């Protein structure tokens, strides 16, 4: 039963994608129906599974769908691992995807590549589900690569735009760098445990902890090395410093894609993988500290960059990176389930933010610069309220979803005494508040600079507004609704290995969702939030010019931030430039001269000569043929006389 259910959840989007691929008629309607129904089926089944798991999170099902490949001693199987973690992930992925798909019907309506778009997005969802339910590293790797591929296709969806092509190339290449890490990690696991199963790895952890791996005479402990390599893969997918810089550029794709990448599918893969491998990471020692530092610095530094951006989508993109930093920080502190919880709430409000941004962009005729917008509150009331909800959830105003998940992560560090990290994350809250309100005030208040007419009809079609409303509800309430049942009801006990510390945390500090909320009003983060709101009100609404007050002092910082700590130059200019130089040398010196002329063409010419000669043997005379046979026979007989 379960077996069947999961198979449908995974393969329904793939099937949809395949049907669309071979679909003959050009009608948008059938494309929309097929594309949405295939995801819808997965979504409904995932929801059903999640509800049943909320009642009883214990069942862990691990089955093999089929044997994929057997080679000598090793067999590679395609398997499914269903537990509370994969169920909640599949719920996030399919639920958010489904509403983004509906939204896309309206958003992509006039686009020529309507069908292509749904092929890609369905495939994207399928690839992500493949990762979510995999029970071995090979399948994980396949899904991982497919996610990379589909993101490449989608970011460059408008392939006639040069910037889109550059952006998808960048995303792909950066992800490849991470993939090398992942692949090396997987290979190391295979070499040292002779298996690619998660379970096998977890069982052989104690044996593995005594193992050392020697590379060029340097000896490394096996577990931290594997964990580090896998984290490189995860940090590329989940956009952590220093492999984050592809994510802002990925905004070149259509806005629903940004929502899909940022909320449901791609960037969550890295976080998910580390949570899935939590037993490994628990043993990995210094790697956890590294993850913690990277996560915190990403959360803080990338939030700062968001402040100086003016493109609405780029701001939200940096906010995603920053929020992913929070999750990574939670991972670094071994509170895996908290990271997943933040991932859950973040998926909803971030998807909503992007959909709002899309709706704004659509209304403003593809203008994305927020300094040029204004006064849309009256014109777009639905988008305004949706943005308001998503925004306060992102800031972490008590009672919203984002508050529960984010404050939990911050409280981890308050309670384990790591005050350095704690203050950084608190500062992150302040920054978050600033950039969220910046969009809010600049877009919805002030003068209507773009002179957009206020029509009496609805601001957009139903298919665009419906997902906004549908996502606004979980953005507001899901944090509170699932707080008790998911975090402290031993929901993750069977799937992540942080059960001890989280239950301890809960019993000692929180007691219940309500008390946690009330307590929050007295906490530091709440005050920072309030200060943030007031500050941004002053800066962005009253438009007090900061530069006058801090003349000269901030300009340097602003420059650094605008250059994104030099990553823009590094990734757009320096690295490509020097790569090109080296590649040119290799191309002319070795490829053209040696490989092409000497080896490839040289051998090919020789073979062609031989070929024309051998062809002459085929004379067409039957006695030649018979003669050849007899000669052949003689030769074979002679061979044995030599023995």
């Amino acid at each position, binding site marked *: 039963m379960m077996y069947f259910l999961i198979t449908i959840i995974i393969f329904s989007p793939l099937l949809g994608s395949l049907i669309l691929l071979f679909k003959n008629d050009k009608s948008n309607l059938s494309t929309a129906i097929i594309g949405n129904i295939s995801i819808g089926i997965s979504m409904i089944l995932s929801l059903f599974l999640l509800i049943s798991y909320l009642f009883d999170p214990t069942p862990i099902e691990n089955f093999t769908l*089929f*044997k*994929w*490949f*057997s*080679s*000598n001693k090793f*067999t590679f199987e395609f398997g499914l691992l269903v537990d509370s973690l994969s169920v909640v992930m599949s719920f996030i992925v399919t639920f958010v995807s489904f509403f983004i798909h509906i939204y896309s019907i309206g958003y992509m309506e006039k686009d020529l590549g309507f069908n292509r778009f749904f092929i890609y997005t369905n495939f994207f969802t399928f690839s992500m589900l493949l990762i979510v339910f995999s029970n071995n590293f090979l399948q994980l790797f396949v899904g991982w690569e497919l996610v990379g591929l589909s993101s490449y296709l989608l970011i460059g969806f408008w392939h006639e735009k040069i910037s889109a092509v550059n952006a998808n190339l960048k995303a792909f290449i950066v992800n490849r760098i991470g993939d090398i890490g992942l692949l090396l990690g997987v290979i190391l696991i295979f070499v040292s445990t002779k298996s690619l199963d998660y379970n096998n790895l977890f069982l052989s952890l104690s044996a593995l902890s005594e193992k050392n791996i020697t590379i060029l005479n340097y000896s490394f402990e096996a577990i931290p090395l594997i964990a580090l390599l896998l984290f490189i893969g995860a940090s590329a997918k989940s956009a952590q410093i220093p492999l984050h810089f592809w994510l802002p550029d990925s905004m070149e794709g259509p806005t629903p894609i940004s929502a899909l990448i940022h909320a449901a599918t791609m960037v969550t893969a890295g976080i998910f993988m580390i949570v899935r491998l939590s037993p490994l990471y628990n043993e990995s020692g210094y790697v956890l500290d590294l993850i913690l530092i990277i996560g915190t610095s990403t959360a803080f530094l990338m939030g700062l960059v968001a402040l100086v951006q003016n493109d609405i989508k780029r701001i939200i993109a940096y906010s995603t990176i920053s929020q992913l930093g929070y999750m990574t920080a939670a991972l670094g502190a071994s509170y895996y389930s908290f990271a997943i919880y933040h991932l859950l709430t973040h998926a909803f409000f971030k998807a909503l933010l992007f959909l709002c941004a899309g709706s704004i962009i659509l209304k403003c005729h593809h203008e994305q610069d927020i300094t040029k917008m204004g006064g849309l509150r009256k014109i777009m009331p639905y988008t305004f309220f949706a943005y308001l909800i998503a925004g306060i959830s992102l800031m972490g105003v008590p009672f919203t979803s984002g508050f529960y998940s984010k404050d939990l992560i911050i409280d981890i560090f308050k309670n384990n005494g790591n005050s350095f990290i704690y203050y950084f994350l608190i500062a992150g809250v302040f920054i978050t508040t600033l950039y969220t309100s910046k969009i809010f005030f600049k877009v919805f208040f002030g003068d209507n600079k773009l002179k957009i007419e206020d029509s009496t009809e609805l601001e957009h079609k139903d298919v665009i507004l419906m997902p906004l409303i549908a996502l606004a509800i979980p953005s507001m309430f899901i944090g509170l609704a699932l707080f008790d049942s998911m975090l402290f009801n031993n929901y993750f006990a069977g799937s992540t290995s942080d059960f001890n510390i989280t239950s301890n945390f809960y019993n000692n500090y929180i007691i219940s969702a309500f008390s946690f909320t009330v307590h929050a009003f007295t906490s530091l983060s709440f005050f920072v939030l309030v200060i943030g709101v007031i500050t941004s009100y002053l800066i962005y609404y009253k438009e007090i010019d900061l530069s006058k007050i801090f003349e000269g002092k901030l300009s340097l910082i602003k420059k650094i931030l605008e250059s994104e700590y030099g990553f823009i130059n590094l990734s757009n200019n320096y690295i490509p430039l020097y790569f090109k130089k080296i590649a040119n040398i290799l191309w002319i010196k070795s490829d053209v001269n040696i490989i092409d002329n000497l080896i490839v063409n040289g051998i*090919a010419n020789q*073979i*062609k000569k*031989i*070929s*024309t000669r*051998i*062809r002459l*043997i*085929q004379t*067409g005379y*039957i006695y*030649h*043929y*018979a003669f*050849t*046979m007899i*000669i*052949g*026979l003689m030769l*074979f*007989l002679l*061979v*044995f006389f030599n023995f």
Partner: protein
Amino acid sequence: MINFLYIIPEIIIMTVLSFVIVLDSFFSKNNKKISYYFVQLSLFLCSYYIIDNFNFLNKNTSNLYNTSIFSNIFKLFITLSLALILHYTYKFLQYFKKYESEYFMIALFALIGMMIMVSSEHLLLLYLGIELLSLSLYSLISFNRDSIFSSEAAIKYYILGAIASGFLLFGISLIYGLTGSLYYVEISNQISSLNFSSSEYTLHAVGLIFALTFILISLAFKFGAAPFHMWIPDVYHGSLITTTLLLSTVPKIAVFIIIIKIINSIFSNLYIFWADILFILSILSIIVGNVTAIVQTNIKRMLAYSTIANIGFILLGIFTGSIEGYKAAMFYTITYVLFTIAAFGLLSELKNGESPIEEITNLSGLNKQYPILAFIFMLLMLSFIGIPPLLGFHAKLFIIQSLILTSNIFLSIFAVLMTVIGSYYYLRVIKVMYFDNLDNKLSCISTSYITYLYVFLLVLLGLFPDILGQISYYSISNL
């Protein structure tokens, strides 16, 4: 008491054949196609009973005729492949107004011949099967008797085939003279009692080695391995494209089984001798096949040389003498046959003006007119090259793996290099289809959903190669 249950498939074919032959001669010209449907029906009935027969196998190898899992799997495979080939043949002959019911009957005779070959445990019975198959093929080749090429091809094949049969009979008679039996088991027992390790061979041993050489060489002729390949290009070129399709697929399976069976059940003790023969045969075949195919312009001749090259790969797998090698060779044979049927079945559905496809350039610009067909054909060509995740990749991989496992490292490097050379002529077809200007005379007889379905299944098989791998392994271990 003789149990006829084992040979129900053969009986069915024979009965339907006798029935249809009589019936067909009473049909009017317009009703003759009913015979074709009878033939197809008999094939499906036959395959049903083969599957049914898995329950009662006769593994007693002292019988003339046995039905092991191995032979049953192959019979099933041969029968189903033949059904598919005849489907294409029927459509092709109908379109070009060359339909004769005899074609299909002769094909059934060939099928019986192959079934006898696969199941025989006795050298004379084997010879009977081979001759039945060969005679049927001679007449199929000359089927298009208006064409001078067709008659020439048939005569060539007939004469050379007679020489090869002579070799085979000579080898068999040598064996009979030396061991006094024609049963595989008894010959094998006799041979295992001999000592071949001493440097001084007895007359006996030399005689056996001679017999082995003669038998293997005549089988190599039937298989089409260099230097006994000379008939292949001319014969393939001369016959109709669907006959070429038939010639290059099912008989190869049958001969493959015979080779495996003979070296495994008769000459297993003479490994060092037959390994040398197979080694030379395979190296020569791969070189001749791949290198000569490059300069061919006729697509049937190209297929002929690619067949030779592929046979070289199959022989490489057998050459290792290990279970892995046999398994790989079997996997390769099945893959090769499946994909050849698809590729040339698809070609038989195209036409150039009012004549069948002959030259590679006839295909130019296929993509512009029939993008789906071009895509399918590209997939098939890529599989021949050995591009993952298609089945051809796994086939080559297993062969090379078995070579490495038996520590023939240089041979595996050789195989890979030759694959690279071989990829040229397959890729050229893709280039012609996709990048050349459209040949306006190119059109399609009928788009067949069977082809689509079939290719789809092949792609699926490629994604899950273990299905075929398990079948190969299972049947080889139940030899």
